[in-house]
């Protein structure tokens, strides 16, 4: 399983009702449905991923998140998860509000644009960072709203969103003291567990 999914898996309560926004091929849901007796639904827009979920028996709904999530009731899920997708939406701030309307709690992971390698790339080369982890060019990237670890914490402060837990890890999920000490510079992936 992808490294950030492993950490999330540890945070998920048994028997909870989970909505996974942008669930991809259903990797996380498959794991938590099997291991944690979770009742889970994924939202996905990619046709191949949807078919993979259907084949695996993971409940998946074909829906464009950018078109809204009004069809889901207030506080109708224990947990709403979004992994590595927040930066791809038109209005991540409004989406965060929506996630906390639908779910009692939310887990969000995103690539930390403040990672030192990105800073170096932009600072020295003067060009938008392209890496194994973020393999797109500026013009074709689906990642239209990059943010840093600190940017996200500020957004939570502004919205009075309570950060219950966080983790900051590098690409190999290594959890070193220097990443914990300087998450905005050292982490490649930021993971937040939030509620109202």
């Amino acid at each position, binding site marked *: 399983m992808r490294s950030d999914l492993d950490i999330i898996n540890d945070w998920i309560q048994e028997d909870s009702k989970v909505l996974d926004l942008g669930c991809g091929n259903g990797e996380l849901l498959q794991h938590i449905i099997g291991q944690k007796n979770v009742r889970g639904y994924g939202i996905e827009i990619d046709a191949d991923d949807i078919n*993979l*979920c*259907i*084949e695996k*028996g993971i409940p998946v*709904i074909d829906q464009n998140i950018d078109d809204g999530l009004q069809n*889901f009731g207030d506080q*109708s899920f224990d947990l709403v998860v979004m992994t590595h997708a927040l930066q791809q939406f038109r209005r991540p701030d409004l989406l965060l509000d929506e996630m906390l309307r639908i779910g009692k709690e939310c887990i969000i992971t995103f690539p930390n644009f403040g990672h030192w390698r990105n800073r170096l790339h932009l600072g020295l080369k003067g060009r938008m960072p392209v890496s194994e982890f973020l393999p797109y060019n500026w013009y074709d990237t689906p990642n239209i709203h990059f943010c840093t670890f600190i940017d996200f914490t500020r957004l939570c402060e502004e919205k009075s969103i309570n950060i219950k837990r966080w983790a900051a890890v590098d690409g190999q999920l290594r959890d070193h003291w220097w990443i914990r000490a300087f998450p905005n510079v050292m982490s490649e992936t930021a993971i937040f567990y939030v509620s109202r």
Partner: protein
Amino acid sequence: MPDTIPADSVGIVTPNVAAFDSPLVLTGKQTLKQYELVYETYGELNSDASNAILICHALSGDHHAAGYHSAEDKKPGWWDAAIGPGKPIDTNRFFVVCLNNLGGCCGSTGPTSINPETNEEWGADFPIVTVTDWVVSQARLADYLNISTWSAVVGGSLGGMQVLEWSIRFPERIKNAVIVASAPNLSTQNIAFNEVARQSIGRDPEFHDGHYAAKETIPVNGLGLARMLGHITYLSDDSMGKKFGRTMRHEEYQYNYDIDFEVESYLRYQGEAFTRRFDANTYRLMTKALDYFDPAAATDNDLTKALEPAQCEFLLVSFTTDWRFSPARSEEIVDALVAAGKHVSYAKIDSNKGHDAFLFPIPRYMSALRGFLNRVHQNIEKESN
């Protein structure tokens, strides 16, 4: 039929008839004392009868879903694209049952059958049957075939409504539900279209209050018109445009009321051909069954509550250009199932074919169906070991 039977065809099939003599009390309070259901089966029922799939047909469908009746048949059954050895509804794995619904005109008891009390054709006196009545009669057919539980019930459009009704009415008898291009009830616009169809038949002078058989005639014009109207609504603007555009019959406009455009000729042909295979009373009856379907009516219009009894896993499919049963209507069912905590997956398929898309082997649609039924098959294997 093609010169040789394709390897993925169920081949030559013969319909069967099941006769029932225990009375069926219909939703409309009338009772059918006895009735017959004509049906076809493809594939083999396994020893514990756990691999049966029921196919529910739509407005103008029948029991002949796959294969050919004879070597002279030009076309296979109406859903041959999906049913056969190696196809998404794989007859190497499943025992597939498809019947002609009550009130139909293709062999099951309906307006063209003889009313035993008068010894004449029922005609318009045949009682109106509802989706619920169909599902109850389908359950009796399942009993007759010694099938206690369907591994899946599958249907598109009006067929999808029957699947939804199955999941609510007989939750222990259905393990999986596939509902394609359907709706939890008809929209106002749909009821309106149905009314125009019924009126065009009813106002045909040859209709004779539905007893045209006694007068040895058929309301060809009315039924043809109803079909023309229906046909337009089953297609999308885009697909009609691509198929016909403004292509003309002659090089120049004729400046009269004969056929100028190809689409006019096509519609006239479709309408006329339909009158040779379909009964006008059945058409009116089927449209009424569509209008009346509304499972949430019994639960204060709360669809989530109506779906509470369901225990099966659901697959819902819609098509982007279907405006008769739009994706939004399928999504109403999906949302209610999620709210009720049911196991549901939903695929909205890109297609320009309008409502008719549900009959076509669109690759993404077929692979969703195949993937879902692969899992159904795996679960059958797991449980029998």
